[in-house]
């Protein structure tokens, strides 16, 4: 297989397979969760469930002061790499072009230098996150194989994207193929690992806010 063939496989069938697994997987996971349902609460309510749930979906993004103080490294690193991933993913010019091909419309991109800076910072933050995970007493205790796998699968697209963009090493088509394949790997694993939190955290936060709100406590 030549590198051009590899690239066209990655952009064609490879992407199709990964996308189907991703979408089907996410739907299956949502179904798995929601089909279980929960019992109606028969206790007299003191506060509101719906509005409190919706509020917690947003407010839980920001930690309370004391928590921030006690876990500032984990929290700051978390913010940096999440924001970094989001910006690189959706605001780099090649990604917008790529998505435009699929969904039919695009949006303004950020200048290359800005994306570059975000990529470098994100890579550093992801490495620091791994170091934090392996050195922080609590995180090290909790860490399992899945935590390391999902870290690697998140890290690879960022690094391969950065390398592909700057054409370090191999010739361009193979670099791009490797980048796309790494994203496909991420998409395939996503629904079946903790990466799924990107979607389910909104359900979890809603439940948390609703449970507390029902009792008249803002969570």
């Amino acid at each position, binding site marked *: 297989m030549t590198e051009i063939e590899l690239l066209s496989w990655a952009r064609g069938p490879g992407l199709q397979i990964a996308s189907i697994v991703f979408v089907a997987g996410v739907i299956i996971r949502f179904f798995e*969760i929601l089909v279980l349902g929960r019992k109606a609460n028969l206790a007299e309510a003191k506060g509101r469930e719906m509005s409190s749930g919706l509020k917690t979906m947003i407010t*839980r993004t920001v930690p*309370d002061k004391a928590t921030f103080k006690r876990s500032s490294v984990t929290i700051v690193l978390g913010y940096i790499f999440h924001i970094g991933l989001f910006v690189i993913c959706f605001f780099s010019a090649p990604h917008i072009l790529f998505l435009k091909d699929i969904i039919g419309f695009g949006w303004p991109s950020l200048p290359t230098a800005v994306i570059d800076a975000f990529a470098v910072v994100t890579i550093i933050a992801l490495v620091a996150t791994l170091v934090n995970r392996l050195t922080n007493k609590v995180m090290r205790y909790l860490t399992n194989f899945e935590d390391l796998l999902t870290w690697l699968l998140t890290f690879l697209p960022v690094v391969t994207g950065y390398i592909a963009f700057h054409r370090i090493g191999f010739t361009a088509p193979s670099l791009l193929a490797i980048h796309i394949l790494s994203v496909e790997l991420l998409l395939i694993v996503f629904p079946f690992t903790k990466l799924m939190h990107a979607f389910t955290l909104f359900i979890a936060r809603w439940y948390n806010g609703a449970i507390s709100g029902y009792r008249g406590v803002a969570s």
Partner: protein
Amino acid sequence: MSASIEKGINALKRQVDSTVAAFFSSCVHCGLCAEACLFYTETGDPKRTPINKTEPLRRIWKSEFTLVGRVGKMLGLTKKVDDKFLEEWQELVYDSCTMCGRCSMVCPVGNDITMMIRKTREGMAAAGQAPAGLIGATTRSVTIGSPMGVKWPALRAQIKHVEEDTGLKVPVDVEDVEYMLLLSSMEIMNFPEFIEAVAKIFKKAGATWTISSEAFEATNSGIQIGVSDIAAELVQRIVDVADKLRVKTVISPECGHAYTAIRWDGPNLVGKAFNFNVRHILEVLDDLRKDGRLKMASKESQRLTYHDPCQIARRGGVIDEPRNLINMISDDFVEMPDAGKMNWCCGAGGGVSANERADELRLKVFERKKAQIDAVKPDAIISACSNCRIHLEDGLEEYNMDIPLLSLTETLAEHLADD
């Protein structure tokens, strides 16, 4: 309570619902919950990280309720839940958690970890992996009617003392009254002044009330040990009597988990909405204040602070009421850092105080409470849970701190206006 590992696993399966599935699906092992838990902050032991305590429930969820887990189970790759594993987790699920709910308030993905620990206890208890102290308290609750073995004659004797001391009548088994007062065994045996305080306040407020000779116990060991059938039976005893006496409101006394048991879990345990309201005594007193039926003649001269019992504040929503009431009797009221919904637990709730094995640990984790108290240096601490009160007294003594503990209801009664 016959128990086996099969029963434990089935009990855990029954606990899995969409909330549990959403919560476990969202956990990223960030470890933030550890820093919210006094059993971690005061021991530094990562085993005691709140989410780790739910591991038995997580294993069952994963292997039975997810596609990946089911495939893994077929291939023999999933981690098993067996007696040995549950035995190892007993100390984490019971001794190292007061179900205070702080972890549920800080989890960035929104997991109600406390609720999952409560659910994990259902499996532990069904598998026979509960601490002896809690099994004893639960057995006494079912057979005698009280976790401390307090029977009606003991309460009748305390009521007689109160009537002699105050000259007031304490109504027993009266029908069609506004309020039916429940009591914790701890109050009956150690703090009968509470009954006296309620009698005085209700007399002044012109409220009609009663105590039932058939169902007076407010505490619910079934909730603490995690056996819903027993918890439901204990709630049903109260429901039957409240319906029979046709009371408007059942009052949960100064006890934390008793409030959760009857107010929030009660109707769900018996599977039916109540025909009466349930209110915490502080809510009732605050309502009387708002209606102008609770008036004070004097104030405390000492510097006061308030310890929020977890089940009443963070897990119960009664946060403003005690402050409204304290303001009636104090010009020198100081809040501890993190007071209110983020208050730190005393370290003895959720059945920990009934579990002798955890005695050393609960005094160790009291250091968190000590730091909070040290920050404001009060002359006295007010609270509204007799379990917190006993343990706070224990802890203060252990750390050579000479600060008296007061009950809010009792303190209010001391300052009642005469008119």
